[in-house]
């Protein structure tokens, strides 16, 4: 996928300013940078959730662009291949864990939604709580379920906004192992991170954003690990 001269403006303020990036299949890209640097907006643009003020997002496999195809069959084909974990859990508090996953499995027209839901709950460590309402879950369990929902339709592109939030050590290990397996299988991952946790292990490229622009890209400068370490140090200092 590629972001081509992408800008997003909210009123007078630019959240993204002329971002151009090309991301190859199977890359695991970490977006680092201070709060308000445009990481979440870039992920939302990739998820077709916001209409760019200028520029475009291209998905080479489908040959489509964001912002102009929302709602048509081409856009639906792209959406089917994207999994998204946001700051919020994107799940219904008044449905059970299993009902939530079945709902989205049906919306994604997956075969045997009940089996897919049960199959996703197991690895997330939530099989025993499948029948519980999400409102009764702890923060970590909610995050596990949010990740399970994002992985439900076997996406080719995963967009994670701070995926480790709320996860305990065991949960982070599960997420790290899951991401490593997905990247090894050719799945493209873009995640915003502060550089910490098990998820950093599978990162193949780091991009530092500042004030809506790409300040540094390890694809050109090298040293993804060093950039993640610097991001972590800056985060801990802040």
């Amino acid at each position, binding site marked *: 996928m590629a972001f081509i001269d992408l800008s997003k403006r909210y009123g007078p303020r630019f959240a993204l300013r002329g971002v151009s990036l090309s991301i190859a299949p199977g890359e695991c890209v970490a977006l680092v940078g201070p709060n308000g640097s445009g990481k979440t907006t870039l992920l939302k643009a990739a998820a077709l959730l916001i209409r760019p003020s200028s520029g475009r997002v291209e998905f080479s496999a489908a040959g489509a662009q964001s912002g102009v195809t929302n709602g048509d069959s081409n856009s639906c084909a792209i959406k089917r291949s994207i999994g998204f974990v946001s700051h919020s859990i994107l799940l219904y508090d008044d449905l059970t864990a299993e009902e939530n996953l079945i709902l989205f499995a049906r*919306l994604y027209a997956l075969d045997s939604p009940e089996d897919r839901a049960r199959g996703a709950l197991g690895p997330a460590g939530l099989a025993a709580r499948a029948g519980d309402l999400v409102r009764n879950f702890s923060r970590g369990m909610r995050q596990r379920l949010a990740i399970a929902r994002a992985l439900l339709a076997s996406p080719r592109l995963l967009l994670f906004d701070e995926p480790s939030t709320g996860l305990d050590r065991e949960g982070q290990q599960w997420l790290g192992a899951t991401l490593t397996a997905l990247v090894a299988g050719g799945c493209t991952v873009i995640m915003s991170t502060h550089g910490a946790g098990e998820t950093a292990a599978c990162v193949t490229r780091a991009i530092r954003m500042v004030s809506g622009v790409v300040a540094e890209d390890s694809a050109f400068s090298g040293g993804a690990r060093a950039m993640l370490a610097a991001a972590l140090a800056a985060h801990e200092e802040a």
Partner: protein
Amino acid sequence: MSLARPIGILFEKELRTEFRTRELLVSTFVFVLIVLVLFSFTFDPTTAESRRFGPGLLWLALLFAGSLMLHPSFTREQSNETLVALRMAPIEPVSIVAAKILANSCFLLVAELILLPVFAALYNLRILPVLGRLIAVMILGTLAISIVGTVFAAISSQARMRELLLPLLLLPLLTPALVASAEATAGLFEDQPALPVVWMAVLAAFDTIFLTVTWLFGEYLLEE
């Protein structure tokens, strides 16, 4: 995926969550009941008086209740940003709005069906001889409230003063539907009950126009 399938899936989700919380149905029922009872104290509900004022009061109460009930239909998608998840699903965005219109219509109709006998008793009106035609008016009038109300609930849900904004947008826009519903209902309580075809046509046209506009511009309603 056809449009009917995601609408059906999301409609089922709306019913399931409402069944668990009963927020919308109970608040609508209680609000309309209170308004009808309070109005019944303000004048002597003889048959003649009730024929004059009853239908208007009923639809005014339903309109106010609708503006209260429809407000949470989108704002409760905001607590966990579930609307984002729905927008990311490979479905037509208008199906999300359509499912909410369908669900809101059902909740309002259920509340109305429960309240009709109360309305008849309080206002000394005989509804049984005209029940079928009254339900036809109810369906068209309720659809009008649901379509316009759901659309403006979606628009106002992202605004700062959303609690105030929805009634302010909704009440003027629904005035034609309110007049048509009240007139059509009043015709059923005349000495010679008759369904006013002109007012029913106005209601049907109102529903068709707003449904078409929603269909055409539905995807823009949900954008950030």
